[in-house]
């Protein structure tokens, strides 16, 4: 192959991976941090804000520092490739460290997914003490945390051809999660991952996670895409019974249901593509919502709690109303299986989150249900509500009385995740 061909191929592959988002560039938004670090707005006194969607970058030694000797050499580790930090398992590239656009000096990088090197980003992306300081500054008491890299993605781990190692990587991720939860003084609650491809190991790890105090799981919407049985199969019965009976929520984070590659026009720059894709990711939660509602699963697991995370909420009334229409027009044959209506399923099982929106929280809160909405910042991701957390809360919830604010900002999350405060 000629050199030029090789370069073209590498260029195509990089674009496909959205690697442009991790290369140097973008625009720095200067943040007047003194005006952003005053903590909780006085009008919200007495509320412990739970930020229900944030991301913790997996620390470079998360796996190697916890691994037993026999796994040490095979554990995920970080290498710097072309000045970008990336995860590797053996020689297999497992992708970037994930998004963090808050700089170590508290400014914000626009038009990119992350600073290329970990030390350029806010240390609160992966270290507990600066994370808690950032939360105090933002006026946030607790955070529900999700992974940042793809190092624990089921399909990637399945492709290693080493099931023992793959399961161990998931277990170490969860071990780190509970250690972090305890070290933070029960303020950082990471949603557990599971070895989805191995039913025995999955059921065992799910029980272990609940027993050690983790507060929920994060799952893909369509596990069949990577060769794991669909939620329609009895493969999931034990796990869903466990969640149902223990009150442990399952969560579907933005991007759980959608393949973004076919959504945008050829010829776009990275920033143009991401603007459309990021918007569609949120609306993609409609698929998750609909899949569960029409599946019959919610009639078997009547107490199952489902978090739609980084979902936004403006689309919710339309989606549920559309599903009401579909129940009438398309599903009369399933009335014996589906015992409730979409609005009933929604109110019995689902929670959604909002961050940048104004119209939804101001105008639709009562339609959706004041008990069904959670607040999030998505810290420290590119679309995160940073800076301006407290100002946005007051803009969107300032017109409601204290009891509604407390539900949306605190007690809805405390109930969903069984938080200890």
């Amino acid at each position, binding site marked *: *192959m000629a050199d030029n*061909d090789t370069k*073209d*191929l590498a260029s*195509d*592959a990089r674009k*496909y*991976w959205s690697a442009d988002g991790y290369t140097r560039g973008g625009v720095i938004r200067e943040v007047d941090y003194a005006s952003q670090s005053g903590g909780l707005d006085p009008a919200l006194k007495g509320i412990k804000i739970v930020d229900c969607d944030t991301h913790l970058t997996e620390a470079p030694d998360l796996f190697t520092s916890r691994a037993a000797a026999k796994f040490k050499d*095979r554990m995920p580790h970080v290498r710097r490739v072309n000045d970008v930090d990336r995860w590797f*398992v*053996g020689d*297999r590239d497992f*992708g970037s460290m994930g998004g963090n656009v808050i700089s170590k000096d508290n400014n914000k990088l626009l038009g990119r997914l992350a600073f290329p090197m970990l030390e350029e980003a806010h240390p609160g992306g992966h270290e507990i003490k600066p994370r808690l300081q950032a939360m105090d500054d933002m006026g946030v008491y607790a955070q529900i945390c999700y992974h940042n890299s*793809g190092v624990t*993605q*089921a*399909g*990637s781990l*399945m*492709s*290693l*051809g*080493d099931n023992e*190692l793959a399961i161990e990587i998931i277990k170490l991720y969860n071990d780190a999660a509970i250690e972090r939860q305890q070290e933070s003084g029960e303020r950082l609650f990471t949603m557990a991952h599971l070895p989805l491809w191995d039913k025995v190991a999955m059921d065992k790890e799910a029980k272990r996670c609940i027993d050690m105090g983790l507060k929920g799981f994060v799952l893909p919407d369509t596990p*069949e*895409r*990577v*060769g794991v049985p669909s939620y329609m199969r009895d493969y999931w019965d034990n796990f869903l019974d466990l969640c149902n009976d223990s009150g442990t929520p399952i969560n579907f984070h933005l991007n759980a249901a959608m*393949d973004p*590659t*076919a959504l945008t026009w050829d010829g776009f720059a990275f920033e143009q593509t991401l603007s459309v894709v990021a918007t569609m990711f949120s609306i993609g939660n409609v698929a998750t919502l609909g899949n569960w509602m029409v599946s019959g699963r919610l009639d078997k697991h009547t107490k199952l709690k489902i978090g739609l995370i980084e979902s936004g909420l403006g689309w919710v009334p339309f989606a549920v109303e559309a599903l009401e229409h579909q129940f009438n027009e398309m599903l009369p044959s399933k009335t014996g299986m589906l015992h409730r209506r979409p609005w009933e399923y929604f109110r019995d099982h689902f929670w959604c989150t909002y961050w940048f929106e104004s119209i939804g929280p101001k105008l639709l809160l009562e339609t959706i249900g004041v008990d069904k909405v959670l607040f999030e910042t998505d810290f420290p991701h590119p679309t995160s509500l940073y800076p301006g957390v407290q100002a946005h809360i007051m803009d969107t919830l300032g017109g409601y009385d204290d009891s509604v604010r407390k539900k949306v900002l605190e007690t809805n999350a405390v109930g969903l995740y069984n938080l200890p405060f």
Partner: protein
Amino acid sequence: MTEQPEDVARAAADRVIQLEEEVEASGVAAVEGAELAHARAALHAWIDEMTGVVVSPGLGRVTIIHGDGRRSSIASATLPYLMSKPLGS
């Protein structure tokens, strides 16, 4: 009674066609005989002309890169694993 492979293929093809009809598109199925042989040969030739590939097991996807830079995406729950080398190999 165990279903014959051609019955399974026919049922799968019918399902695809049904869903495509929802957007007024018509798919053409080939599940046996000369039509299937022709489709298989054309697919082999198409694959043989690829100049690159991105295997994404985490997404259940393989992306074929063609000589002119175009990309074709194959969503598959099995192909990415077939194309991934086991760790250490």
